[in-house]
Structure formats: C-alpha cells, structure tokens
C-alpha cells in the first residue's frame, strides 16, 4: 500500500506555443539573497500568453516575490533575461512599465491617499489624461464595489479593503500585462469573487495575468497554468489539470478516529499525516479502496468516526512538490 509520488513534473515553459504571442517570457532568471548562502531564484523560466492567467505557487520563501520583482524590472537578475511583448526589459522597470501594471504585496505608497485619489493618480501616472483617469477611476471603483469608500483615506481602511483598493490601482491604465503579488490576500469571500470576476474580464479582453497566490483552492479554478517554485527552483509548470493527471489516480483518503484505532499510520502505507486522530494519506485508487474496505470490515471500524475519499487537488500537487527534494 505504498504510494509513489511523482515530483518531476516540469515541461518546457520558456517559449509559448507556436503561433501564440507571449505577453512576457522569463528565461533562466537567477538572483541571490543579500548576505545569504543560497539563491532566492535559481534559473527559472516561463512565459505567459495574452488572455492567460498564469499562477506562481510555492511556500513562503520559495522565491515567488523575487521572481515577480525581476519580471517587472524592479530587480536586476544575476542571470537570465525578461522579455515583454518581444522586447528585452531585463532590470528596466521604467521600460517595462509601458506595458505592465504591478501590484506589490503592500500598498505602503498609497496609504496617505483617498481610494479615489490613489486610483486616479495611478491612471494619470500611467499616461491617461485627467478626464480619462477620472472616468476610469469611477468605473473601477464601481466594478470593485469601492464606491462607498472612495473618499476614505487608505490608511483608515481594513486590510482587506486596502487590498481591494490596491487591486483597483493595478487595473488602472489598462495594461496588457498584470503582475499581481497576492491580490486576494485578506479579502472576504465576496471581495475575492469580485476580484476574480474583474480579472476574468481582463483575461477575456486578452490581458495576460501573472499572479502569486496562497489560496490554492481558488487558484485551481482560475489559473490557466501554474508554476510551482520550491527553494527558488521550478519543480512544476503546467496546467492544473495536467499537473493533477501526473499524480495518476492518486486519491486522498482521510480518516477521523473516535478513539485510538487498532492500527498504526504505517499500516496504511504512504506518507500519512496524523493530526489529533485525523489521518490523511494519498494513495492509488485501488490501494485506497482496499484499505478502506479492510477498515470498514475489520475491528478498526468501531474506532472510526468519519472518512472521505477525494480526488487529487492542486494542493496535493503543491504538497508533493514541497517534498520533492527528498523524494528525488
């Protein structure tokens, strides 16, 4: 009953499919931490196409933000190149800015402004006329449900409201490439849906979106392709569906025990996660069925409180990628 977990799931992501224009393409990006022994980003390549939502996933410290900052030109990589709409803009933020809107993790530059001023000023600084910026600001505030907060100063808003206003500034100026660092962090359910709907409309218009998110469940239904980083390196890059396929029929078996069961996690095989009498393990379908049958028909049944079998998710892919180094 031992499950084997595939961890090498890389495809060649450096170039877009033939005939498909790349909104941005990163090749071999490398950058070290200051005063640190290891690389923050180590030879990462990918491309995002127009009309595509491209996700960058990974644990904290995996190198996601460093990668995005290199992509928009804020950080000059130690190695590698960035091309946006065909032109090389490596380490040249001002040059990339003609086509890119970047949402950093915090809105510290905007906290002194009202929401309306922040959106309008951003549109103006992206080259829109005053009248156009005002019109677009009004439309964005309405689209994101921020009209009631339009005249509130950003620093007086809750974290979620401030994030939503930050997203509005990223959408100002209608750039063909949006690079968003955790756009939905801190948002409530309604606001998250509002943001995803807004991004979906941009995608339909041909905008390319590269984003970092920790909300894997949401990302699964939104992202067209996913790059998974682990300790600065690419461990997977593909569509969510294909990534899950690579897990070839692995399902997650979850068992909740009423009291200590007459078996140990090792009896199940695989890498069992044990948390307060709740066990979770990924197994091939047949192994999971056989294990469950044995439990339900044996003495362990009396200790069982609940169980579930779920198909593989993007979260499983991530978890597997996190342990990939050891597995290799």
């Amino acid at each position, binding site marked *: 009953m031992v499950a084997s977990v595939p961890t090498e799931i890389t495809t060649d992501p450096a170039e877009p499919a033939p005939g498909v224009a790349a909104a941005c393409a990163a090749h071999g990006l490398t950058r070290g931490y200051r005063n640190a022994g290891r690389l923050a980003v180590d030879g990462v390549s990918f491309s995002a196409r127009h009309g595509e939502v491209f996700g960058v996933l990974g644990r904290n410290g995996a190198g996601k933000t460093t990668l995005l900052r290199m992509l928009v*030109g804020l950080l000059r990589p130690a190695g590698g190149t960035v091309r946006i709409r065909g032109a090389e803009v490596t380490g040249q933020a001002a040059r990339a800015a003609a086509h890119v809107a970047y949402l*950093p993790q915090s809105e510290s530059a905007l906290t*002194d402004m009202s929401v309306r001023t*922040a959106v309008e000023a951003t549109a*103006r*600084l992206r*080259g829109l006329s005053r009248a156009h910026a005002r019109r677009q600001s009004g439309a964005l505030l309405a689209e994101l449900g921020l009209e009631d907060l339009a005249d509130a100063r950003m620093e007086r808003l809750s974290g979620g409201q401030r994030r939503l206003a930050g997203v509005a500034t990223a959408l100002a100026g209608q750039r063909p490439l949006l690079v968003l660092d955790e756009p939905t962090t801190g948002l409530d359910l309604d606001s998250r849906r509002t943001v995803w709907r807004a991004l979906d409309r941009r995608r339909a218009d041909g905008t390319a979106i590269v984003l970092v998110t920790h909300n894997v469940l949401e990302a699964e239904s939104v992202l067209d392709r996913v790059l998974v980083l682990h300790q600065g390196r690419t461990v997977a890059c593909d569509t969510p569906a294909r990534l899950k396929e690579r897990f070839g029929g692995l399902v997650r078996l979850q068992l909740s025990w009423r009291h200590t069961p007459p078996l140990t996690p090792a009896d199940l095989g695989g890498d069992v996660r044990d948390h307060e009498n709740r066990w979770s393990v990924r197994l091939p379908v047949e192994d999971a069925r056989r294990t469950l049958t044995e439990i339900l028909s044996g003495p362990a049944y009396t200790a069982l409180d609940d169980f579930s079998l779920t198909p593989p998710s993007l979260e499983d892919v991530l978890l597997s990628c996190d342990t990939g180094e050891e597995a290799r």
Partner: protein
Amino acid sequence: MTSTSRSFTPVTATIATVHTAQLGRARAGGGAVVIVATLQSLAILALLRGIGGTAGQEARAAVVSGATLTVVAFIAWNLLAQRLAALKAGGGLDYYGTLPVRPAAVVLGFCTCYATFAVPGVVLTAAAGIALFGLPVTHLWVLVPAALSSAVAFGGLGALSGLAPTRPETAALAGQLGLTAVMFVGLIPPGPLPDWLAAVRAAMPLAYDIDALASALTPHPDWTGITLRLTGSAAFGACCLAVAARSYRTALNH
C-alpha cells in the same frame, strides 16, 4: 509582436500628480510640523530681537532671512527626508518604480509638495521678522525666487538624505543635521565671524539664498550678488535633484 517603446508620462503631469497625491501625507504629517517650524523661527526672531535689536541693518536682515528660509529647510529637507526614508523602508518605492515616469519628476513632485506646504510659515516668519527688525519691504519680492530656489536645493538635499541611506534612522539623522547646518548658516550673521570662516560660510550653497534675501532686505541691495547667488543656488538644487534621482533609481534595485 509589439515592440516595447520607451514612453514616459509627461514630466509636468508626473510632478502635478505626485504633488497632489502627496498632499494628504503632507497635511496629515506636516501640519503640526509647519506650526512647530514657524513657531521655532518666530521664537528665534524674538530672542535675537531682544539681544541684538540695535545691531546694524545688514545683521538684522541676515537674521530675518535665515529664520525665514529655515522654515523651508525644516519642511523640505528634514520632513521630506523622513517621509522618503519611510517610503523606501516600507517598499513603497516599488509603486513608483513600476510606473512609466521619470525618477527626477517623481522626486521633484515630492519636493514641490513639501516645499509648497512651507509657504504659510515662510510668509508669516518673513512678515514678523520685517516688523520686529524694522526692515524695508521694497524688495521683499526677492523672497519668492529665494524661497523657490531654496525649496529646490533643500528639497533635493531632503530627497537625497531620505533615499541614499540604507537605514531610515540614518536618513532621520541626515535630515536633522541638515536643519542644524541651515540654522547655523542662517542665524549667525557673517559680520562677527573671523574672515576665513565668513568666507567658508559664504561659499556654502546653503547660504546663497539666505544671503541673497538678506541683501534684498537692506536699503541698497547688491543686485549682481543677489542674481549670482540665486542662480548658484538653483544650479546647486538642480545637482541635488539629479543625485537624488540617481539615489531613487539605486533604491529601486536594492
């Protein structure tokens, strides 16, 4: 594929937008500071009037000029340095760094915003000083170019002090030291100084505007000296802004 062209938002639009966007912070963080800066200069004027009211007209004009432009230094140098250092430390420069704007225009937008905010304090201090020391107002219009060029110079130094250091504490220290230097140069009349020290003081760009305004507050201004000093100060300010813009670019790529 479309080629990426290097197109920037017009400089004037950038300056105006950054200026407007920063007004909220200047009002919130600077309101009390403007009052403190003005009261400080007024208190210095009152003190010096008490102990040096019979001094010569040149010395009295120098004190009024120094106290007036110290208000500009307080806001445009000290406060701006702290603001930019905080912005840099909080990652706020990323916002401006990913907009198609020229670094110098962003820095200038910050400078003009904070300098503009010093205007009421400058006017009040100048008016009070002239009344206290009985100076002529005929050539008071020189205050306008002197305040403008000192705003550029002190603003540029403020931006440099805020952006160049790696730690916000160093930026705050640089701002305070700058203010102290301006007070030293501005509030000690050059007359009683030894010749060599007076020459050093007069050569310092920080003194150009102060000496130009001081000369304008005397009955017989030295117009050639005033023109040269104001021009020199403006040139010095432009250099400071250029170096500050370079620091801004460096800070983006930290």
